[in-house]
């Protein structure tokens, strides 16, 4: 049983990898051209999740060098997440104004 457990542990990240990969492909492949830029911006926001990794890295940092790079990581991760969100939001806000605009 122990060996099975190890095999499952080894394969589960690979399954995540495969499924997430297909999912990303599916999400994009049926998108009208009109949404390409907002969606690129949206995916740009989603990889802002790097922020949580950066927080963990900084939280473990001990030496000043590690703290420096951890700080840089959190700084840039927060920039990615916050900037990515507001750029996307501003872009998508325009789609609201295009609906029901027949005055």
């Amino acid at each position: 049983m122990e060996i099975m457990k190890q095999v499952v542990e080894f394969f589960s990240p690979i399954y995540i990898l495969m499924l997430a990969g297909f999912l990303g492909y599916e999400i994009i492949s049926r998108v009208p051209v009109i949404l390409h830029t907002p969606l690129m911006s949206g995916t740009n926001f989603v990889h802002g999740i790097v922020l949580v990794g950066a927080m963990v890295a900084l939280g473990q940092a001990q030496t000043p060098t590690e703290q420096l790079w951890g700080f840089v990581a959190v700084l840039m991760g927060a920039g990615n997440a916050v900037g990515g969100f507001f750029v996307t939001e501003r872009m998508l806000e325009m789609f609201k104004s295009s609906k029901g605009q027949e005055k």
Partner: protein
Amino acid sequence: MGYLIETIYFVAAVLFIIGLKRMSHPTTARSGILWAGYGMVVATVITFIHPQIHGNYPLMIAAIAIGGGIAWWGAKKVAMTAMPQMIAIYNGMGGGAAAAIAAVELLKDHGQQALPVSTLVLAVAGALIGAVAFSGSVVAFGKLQELKFFKDDAKFRFTGQQKVNAAIFALAVVLGLIIALSHSTSGVLISVFFLLALAFGAMMALPIGGADMPVVISLFNAFTGLAVALEGFVLGNSAMIIAGIIVGSSGTLLTLMMAKAMNRSVSNVLFSNWAALGSGEAQAVTGSLKPMEPSDAAIQMAYAAKVIIVPGYGMAVAQAQHKIWEMSKLLIERGTEVKFAIHPVAGRMPGHMNVLLAEAGVPYDLIFDMEEINEEFSTADVALVIGANDVVNPAARTDKASPIYGMPILNVDHAKNVQVIKRGKGVGFAGIENALFFADNTRMVYGDAQKVAAALIQGIKDLG
């Protein structure tokens, strides 16, 4: 504690997926970013009680406040036309963050619980890809922002460039493997490794012309996703793995779709450049530029049965989309058929023009993609080109020596009359003359697109 955090990360991943799914449809797009936003907020908040975090909270909060604050201010302040470069710079930050995480993990003395070699290899790979995405995105930002230093693509081109780049890349890979295999925490070795990776990213992006930048940004976006996923494996963080891989795969597909729209392969974009593409001297352009007053242009359009409008970057710069739509409405009231034709890479990004026209309130059913409308130009009385250049250059069809040869273009030259609104006599982003402007049926309306559009509106109104 661990279960709680993993549950929240799982919820965040689900929210990201729902968000992206909703973002892929125009009517739900706006709520999509909010869903994804909630995912990001819960994941970030719960991380504060992550069991692996032992301290440094003040530094953490300061970094989030500064980084988030600057990004918030930047994202709110910039003009809509500057959005592509903002995407580039925020993407670069993500790549840089992934690389910096790797730096912390590599530099750290893990003591008894040394990371296994396989994990170190993933960390190094993520560091390399993240650093390349960072420096490459910074260069892309500089180019799109038209900073002086980056302006001249040609000065960054030299013979044997690809060999030098390949050598730098190979050196970075070898050094990375040495670091991973020897469990080295040597600061010097790691610094040199990062410098090589950064240099490679910059050298890769520097010689690429501005017109290719959307493809490049999209590619770096996919890179960052991949780097985030790799660092997710290192940290055992499932939210990072899932989100990173989704971005990596969707970004790769988007990159391929964009490159296809320009009839160029991704390797063609990356490893050759406009100047080197043409096999000889471009055909000399014959004819002359024939200017036209806006009032005359207005009369021509007012009595046309069918007008096709082709917007380009010039419309974006002048923020002319509202005036253009106002003018179009006047024409529609007079019984003229008005359609908008959008080239896949018009502006600086796919969909850039659609976003701007949507902002102005142009209904979707008047906006057509290239494939849908290209046959119709021959039946149009007037094709109105607003600040578009390379995407309407017939040389792409005819001139084998032209750097844009083979790129699908809008067949604007097939229209009975062509009007081109243009700021001046300069060349387009690809840096080449446009034969369309010299054609017999083309008239040039010089001026800022917004002012010209206002003059056109006045001209049509004067007709009563």
